[in-house]
């Protein structure tokens, strides 16, 4: 096991898969799409960044991702906190219920919203039956539907990331603060929250990156009026076969994810040393 030759042999098959199945195509796509000069991609990228249609797509993608991130942290952290601190005999079941959706297909999970928000759906039916409105309001194919769908998808990720952060905060610190006379709210604000902050930053990053690149939700719940980067990338690559457009969109998406991850790891490092 210790020799270099053995180590190289162990690495080789994995490296081959990584190169052929990921690294080489990913780099080649940026510089050499089929029958396209590299310059075309960057010309296209420049055009996109001044095109109001495309800027609206980038703006919508960023705004919805930001809203979803805020909601997921706002709902996910309390769930993680209560799960970590509760002594209820239901805690195991509740934890399992929060993690289980991660294993379930995105398509299946998103599909439920069609039944709830659709024109014959539960909410429309309820409102018209109660006589609150004459006609069911348009809920499906709206930004609201996308936000609901993505919140459902990414909340478990936020919970499990916050959960591992909160479980690392010694509950003895809570007790000590309470014993010294701090209120529950103050203990939460001054002890639990700052100590779990790095975990919250990681959770927010994962949710934001996931939302910026999500395809299933905007496709099923956003309709053609609420295009996002992911649905637009698919249109370029598989409907209009516009390679420069697809590559340029892919570059924008990748840069967004990298910038957010980079900023968050900087923030995380600062938080750790502060």
């Amino acid at each position, binding site marked *: *096991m210790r020799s*270099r030759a*053995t*180590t190289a042999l162990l*690495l080789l*098959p*994995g490296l*081959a*898969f*990584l190169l052929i*199945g*990921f690294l*080489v*195509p*990913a780099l080649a*796509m940026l510089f050499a799409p*089929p029958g396209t000069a590299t310059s075309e991609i960057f010309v296209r990228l420049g055009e996109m960044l001044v095109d109001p249609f495309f800027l609206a797509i980038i703006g919508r993608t960023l705004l919805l991702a930001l809203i979803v991130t805020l909601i997921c942290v706002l*709902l996910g952290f*309390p*769930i993680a*906190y*209560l799960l970590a601190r509760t002594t209820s005999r239901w805690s195991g079941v*509740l*934890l*399992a*219920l*929060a*993690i289980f*959706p991660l*294993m*379930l*297909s*995105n*398509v*299946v999970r*998103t*599909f*439920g919203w069609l*039944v709830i928000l*659709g024109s*014959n*759906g*539960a909410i429309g039916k309820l409102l018209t039956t109660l006589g609150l409105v004459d006609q069911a309001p348009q809920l499906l194919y709206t930004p609201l539907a996308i936000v*609901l769908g993505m919140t*459902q998808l990414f*909340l478990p990720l936020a919970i499990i990331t916050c959960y*591992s952060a909160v479980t690392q905060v010694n509950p003895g610190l809570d007790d000590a603060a309470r014993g010294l006379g701090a209120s529950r709210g103050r203990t939460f604000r001054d002890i639990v929250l700052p100590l779990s902050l790095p975990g919250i930053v990681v959770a927010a990053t*994962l949710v934001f990156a996931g939302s*910026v*690149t999500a*395809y299933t939700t905007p496709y099923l719940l956003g309709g053609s009026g609420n295009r996002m980067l*992911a649905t637009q*990338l698919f249109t370029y690559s598989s409907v209009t076969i516009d*390679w420069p457009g*697809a*590559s340029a969109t*892919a570059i924008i*998406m*990748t840069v967004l*994810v990298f910038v957010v991850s980079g900023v968050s790891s900087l923030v995380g490092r600062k938080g750790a040393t502060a």
Partner: protein
Amino acid sequence: MNTRHPVAATLAVAGYIVMIVPILFVVATAFTDGETLSFPPRGFSVRWFGEALSYQPFVGSLVTSLEIALLATVLALAVGVPVTLAIHRGALPGKGLVENLFLSPLIVPELVVGLALFQQLIVTFRIDNWPVLLIGHTALLLPYAVRVTGAALAGSDASLEEAARGLGASPMRAFWTITMPLLRPGIFSAALLSFITSFNNVPLSLLLQSRKTQTLPVTMLDYVQQSYDPMVAAISTIILAATIVIAVIAERTVGFAKIFGGING
């Protein structure tokens, strides 16, 4: 859940509703006797399950999904576990760099990876969709194979193997009697996680599909777009039931939180 934290408890209830209630609606509409997706469902019937299971595109794509998920899992472990061994036990300069290289498929958006493979392997090199789908899924699963199995090795001591070798065990014997038992729970977790990740994948499968090669989630997305009947609810309920079975197995063997806690940390 907890009455001492009223605000947190209210937010938590809202969170659980958003996560769970849509899934219940899927199940409820699957058992309808009516012709369309509407709520409340009309009557009770299991006929849409029969329809879904005899609808050729669903059955065909289910088989494709299972084949790809199974083969990609086996391949990812077959090439990924040796990489883990090289990282944690081998003579390797720059271990951290190599590990990060194998985790890199996690940070690039999957849709971008799908586009890259489509352009470069299918359009440029004219490789068939099916093998490209398998290669793509395998590359996507490599981080799980390397990271999740590695966690077990990182937490254990290489001196155990050295002791076995010192006592006269052959390298193979030392591997099978010392290293392998250490790896086994990690391999099981990685296999489970990999299979589910591949089976549920949309971005790669979407961009690498052809008329002959389509996975179940992509077929379902297409179907919803053209038809509004409860067949997708029925197939979704079947997937839900199968996922619950896998989840129970996971919980009973390694534990949920362990499996899903490992990949982001």
